C-alpha cells in the first residue's frame, strides 16, 4: 500500500488497532454531526492529491479534497461536519466505510490509490437505565470542583463561574491560554483532575467543551483528551506557527473515549494554540464532564 489512512496517533509501520467513534446521545442535537481527524501518509515516490469521503446508509458525508501531499510525507486534517445523520432514538452501533483516494493531479482525475477503512460508530444512550453516572462535574456551584491547570508552554489560568458559554446553568469552568496576554508563539495548556474509575466492563469519559478564539492573528492547533500521558483523542494537528485553525472553534463539541476500569486516571484536556499578536487569547469553556459505566 502506498497511501495510508489512520484514525489515531499510532505510527506506521505498527498496524493501527481497531478504532471506534463513541458518543453519548443525551443532549446531542438532531441531526447529529460528526467531526473526525484523519492522518494520511503518502509512501509513494510522487506527490499525490488526497480526497476523503465515506458511505453508510442513512448518513450524509462531505467529500473533502485535502490538496497535494509530497512523497514520503504525512498530514493531519480535521474534517469538521464530516458526516451527519438523524439522531438515533436508542443506543446504536454502525459501521462507516471511510475512503481515501489518492490522485496524481490537482484536478483529482487520475486515480492512483484507493484505501478503505471501516470504523464503528457507537452511540451510547447514558439515560437508558443501563448506565451508572459515576462522576459529574457541572461547575454550577461556582468552584473548579477539583480541576487544575498547568502550562506546558506559555501561560494558562483557570477561572470558575464562567457565564458567557455554559451547558448547565449557571456556570461553566473556563481556562484561558495566554491569560497574561502579552506573549506570542505557542501556548499549550493542560486542564486536569484525577478520578478513581469504577471496576466495570465499560467506562467512558464524556467531555463537552467550547474553544473560544479571540479575533484573528492566532490559530488553534489541537485539542487532546488524555489519561496521564496516554492520548485518547487528538483533534487537529501538531503545533505549527501559523494563523490557520485546525480544530473546530466557537461551538460546543463532545469528545467521548473509553477509560481503563478500576484504576486512578488523571484526565487531561490539552489545548495548543499559536499566537501572532500578544493580546490574542483562546479559552476552553468546560461543562458537565461525566464518567459513566456499566457491566
Amino acid at each position, binding site marked *: 500500500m502506498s497511501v495510508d489512512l489512520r484514525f489515531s496517533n499510532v505510527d506506521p509501520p505498527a498496524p493501527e488497532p481497531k478504532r471506534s467513534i463513541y458518543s453519548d446521545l443525551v443532549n446531542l442535537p438532531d441531526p447529529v454531526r460528526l*467531526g473526525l481527524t484523519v492522518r494520511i501518509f503518502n509512501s509513494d515516490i510522487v506527490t499525490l492529491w488526497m480526497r476523503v469521503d465515506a458511505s453508510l446508509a442513512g448518513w450524509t458525508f462531505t467529500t473533502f479534497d485535502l490538496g497535494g501531499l509530497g512523497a514520503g510525507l504525512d498530514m493531519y486534517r480535521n474534517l469538521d461536519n464530516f458526516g451527519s445523520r438523524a439522531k438515533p432514538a436508542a443506543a446504536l452501533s454502525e459501521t462507516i466505510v471511510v475512503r481515501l483516494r489518492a490522485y496524481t493531479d490537482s484536478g483529482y482525475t487520475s486515480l492512483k490509490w484507493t484505501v478503505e477503512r471501516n470504523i464503528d460508530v457507537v452511540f451510547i444512550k447514558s439515560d437508558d437505565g443501563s448506565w451508572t453516572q459515576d462522576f459529574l462535574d457541572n461547575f454550577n456551584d461556582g468552584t473548579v470542583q477539583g480541576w487544575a491547570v498547568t502550562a506546558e508552554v506559555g501561560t494558562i489560568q483557570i477561572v470558575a463561574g464562567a457565564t458567557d458559554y455554559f451547558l448547565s446553568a449557571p456556570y461553566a469552568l473556563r481556562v484561558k491560554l495566554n491569560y497574561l496576554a502579552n506573549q506570542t508563539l505557542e501556548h499549550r495548556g493542560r486542564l486536569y483532575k484525577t478520578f478513581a474509575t469504577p471496576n466495570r466492563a465499560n467506562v467512558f469519559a464524556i467531555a*463537552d467543551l467550547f474553544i473560544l478564539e479571540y479575533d484573528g492573528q492566532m490559530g488553534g492547533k489541537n485539542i487532546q483528551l488524555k489519561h496521564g500521558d496516554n492520548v485518547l483523542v487528538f483533534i487537529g494537528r501538531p503545533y505549527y506557527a501559523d494563523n490557520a485553525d485546525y480544530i473546530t472553534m466557537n461551538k*460546543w463539541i463532545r*469528545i467521548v473515549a473509553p477509560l481503563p476500569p478500576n484504576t486512578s486516571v488523571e484526565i487531561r484536556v490539552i489545548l495548543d494554540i499559536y499566537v501572532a499578536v500578544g493580546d490574542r487569547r483562546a479559552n476552553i469553556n468546560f461543562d458537565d464532564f461525566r464518567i459513566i459505566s456499566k457491566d
Partner: protein
Amino acid sequence: MSLLKKILLLIGGGSGVKVVVVPSANSYFNLVGTVDLREQGGYFNRT
C-alpha cells in the same frame, strides 16, 4: 422462547446494544448546530 432467540439474547447480552470497547478514534460530535447556537438549545447565553 425459541432456541435461536435464546442464543441471540446470549450473544447480544439481552436487549440493547452491546458496547465492545476498543480505543477511541480521533473524533467528536458537535453538541450544537452551526447556525444559531441559542436556537439549538445547547447552551444558554446570559450576557
